[in-house]
């Protein structure tokens, strides 16, 4: 809650790598970080849904970020990491290559997504962080996570 207060000044971001590219999330949306555990696939689920795992007795859907971000399906290894993220009451595990960093940036360093991008692309990317010569997209978790109806189904 305090982070929401502090958001105008600084923001803490978690950087992760997916399909060779770097993305970031607001750390407040992250609940947990786990190593890869094999997931049980769900029949007839969208292709970015990797399956479900047992997280402390709770069924947690796993989203393959690579497929979700329009790239090839990930072949998970021990080195792959599951970021347990939550937005609102929706909670899901994001399958990424690796968590690369946790960094604190000023809020103004996060620039809005340019208009040139399509509406769909703009809905997935909340903002772009340009820092140390790198361009890191800050993903919009609301858009990425499947709707709760689907999740409930």
């Amino acid at each position: 809650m305090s982070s929401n207060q502090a958001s105008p000044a600084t923001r803490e971001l978690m950087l992760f790598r997916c399909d060779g590219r770097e993305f970031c999330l607001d750390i407040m949306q992250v609940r947990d970080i786990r190593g890869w555990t094999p997931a049980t696939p769900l029949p007839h689920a969208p292709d970015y849904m990797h399956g479900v795992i047992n997280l402390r007795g709770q069924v947690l859907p796993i989203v393959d970020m690579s497929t979700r971000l329009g790239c090839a399906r990930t072949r998970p290894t021990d080195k792959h990491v599951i970021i347990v993220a939550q937005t609102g009451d929706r909670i899901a595990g994001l399958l990424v290559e690796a968590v690369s960093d946790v960094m604190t940036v000023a809020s103004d360093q996060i620039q809005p997504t340019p208009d040139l991008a399509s509406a769909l692309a703009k809905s997935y990317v909340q903002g772009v962080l340009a820092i140390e010569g790198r361009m890191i997209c800050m993903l919009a978790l609301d858009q990425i996570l499947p709707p709760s109806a689907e999740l409930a189904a």
Partner: protein
Amino acid sequence: MAGDITKGADTATGSSRLSFGNLRVGTRVATGFVSIVILLALACGFSFMAVKSISASLGRLHESIEVEDRVRKVDRDFLDMRRYVREFGISGHASALAGAEKAEVAVRQSINSAIAETRAPDRLDKLRKVQTLFDTYAAQFHRVADLHAAEETFVSREIDPLGEKLQQGLETLFDIGQGEGNSDQLKASGSAIKSLMTMRLQLDRALERHDASAAKSYAVAMSELNAFAPKLQSAYEATDHGASVSAFYVTVASFNAVAAKALKADEEIVSLIDTSMAALAMEIAQLAADAVHVSESEQEQIEQGTIKAIENVMASVLGLGVAGLMIACVLAWFIGRGLALPIQRITATMKSLAQGALDVDVPAQDKRDEIGEMARAVQVFKIQGQRARELESEAAQARKTAEEERTKADAERAAVAREQADVVEQLGVSLAALASGDLTTRVRDFPDAYRQLATHFNDAVDKLEQTMSIIAGSSLGMQSGAGEIAQASDDLSRRTEQQAASLEETAAALDEITATVRTTAQGAHHAQNVVATARVGAEKSGEVVQRAVAAMSEIAKSSTEIGQIIGVIDEIAFQTSLLALNAGVEAARAGEAGRGFAVVASEVRALAQRSADAAREIKTLISTSSNQVAAGVTLVGETGAALTRISTQVQEVAGIVTEIAASAQEQATGLQQVNTAVNQMDQITQQNAAMVEEATAASHSLKSEAERLQAMIARFTLAGTAGRPSVEVMRPRQAMPKRTVAATRGNAARKLEPAQDDWAEF
């Protein structure tokens, strides 16, 4: 005696017609020889007698020399004794006395031995005189010795104690003077002491050396001492010591009396030695010298007598020899003449009788010896000859008639003889020609009676000529053949020598080769050993490679394990990193309160990250190392394979080398056999060379023999030279062997040349 014989010979010549001439020849010769033998016996007897007398005189000479020697010894020994006596007289030493006594014994012995040796009475008398004189001399010498001994005792018993007493007396006086401090007394007593000393010294010298001058000096010193008497008396009377002085002078007087006695005895000794004994010695020496002189003159006499006797003997033997020779010559002349003259005369008579002069007189018929008998026999011959002459004159008549018939027959016979002579002459000429080697000679124009002889002779000569022609041809062929053989033998000999030399070189070369092969065999054996060692080394290397491969596998295994461990570490690092991230998330959620925790989480994450990185690096390194180990294993495996191949090849090489060694050994053995064979060949060649040498010599002698035969045949004149048809017929036969010789020679040459090439190659 010689004169008697000559006279006898003279009388014999005088009466030869009657007595000597009528003796038989044997008797005459015997008479001559007997007289010569008697003469020789006389000469021998005379020579024997003369030699005997010379031997006797030589014996006498020997005796005389012996005696002279003895006498000289006496003289020498006596001289010795005199020397000792003189020495004794001068020195009086006991050694001189002992020497003199020893010499005396020697002289006595020499005199006795000389007397024993001597035979001549006058010399014996002289020696006896010498003996007597020497006895006297010896007695005197003993007297001298006694005197000397007495003198010595006298000196020691009387003179010396008295002298001492005098000395003491004077010294007492001197002491008195010293005690009184009287200078007059001191002076007088000092001078008296001095005089006394001189006196005693001189007396000692006079007695010791028998010195007359010392005796005089003694007298002077004594008078001097006596002269001091008044001075002493006056000096000492002043101190009432006059009595001592007078007592001293009483002693002086008694000393003087004793000394005079001693000096007298000494004088006697001197006079004995110097006068009496010297005279005796001179006499003895004179006698000895006389004896020696007599001996010498006697020896000279004997020597001269002997020389004279020898000369006499020589003259007599010479005279006898000459006389004997003359007598022998005269006798020989007479006997020879007595025999030869009548025999010559009878021979002349016999010659004239043989010539037919039957009217000669036969001499010496009246002689009664063998010549007379001969003459009488000749007389018988003469009478018979006269008788035969008468018969002959009767036969002459009958012969005359037969003579005429004989002349007629002689004419016929002369004709026949002429013919015969002609034939003989021709035959003689032909035979002479034949003898000189002309075989072309023939006889012709013989009378009918001798025709057959001519034919036979001609046939014989023909046959001979044919034979000689054939022989000439054969000998020519033989000569050339012998020449060829000699030439061939020379060549053969030379080549055999070359062959022998080559064989020797071959043997030497073979020896070298044998040595080389042996070295090769040794080298091969060595190589075999080396190869075996190499093979063992290679096998060991294979084992090492196996071990290296195993070690590599171990390394690989360890690497894998390390990799697993590294994986675990990496996992742990990953988990740690996740935990740190979670921690960071939690810290971020905590807000301000979790700020510090966030830092720690970040640090932990960084550590985890580093640890993961390190693990990754190690993993990379390990994998690289694993790869390299794998490569190494492969390489080592290849090395092992290569080593195995090498081992196999080395095995093969060892086999080959063994074969080489075996074959080298075989070669060496073979070469040894070859060497033996070559040595045998060498020996055989040497023997061949010797045989060839002999063959060459034989062929040369054959050649020379053939030449000699040729020369001998050339002495014959054959028809070939005269060009007679019969010889022409012979020619081809003669030429035949020549041609064959030429042919064989050609063949031989052709055969020889390649052979020569072969030899050269060989």
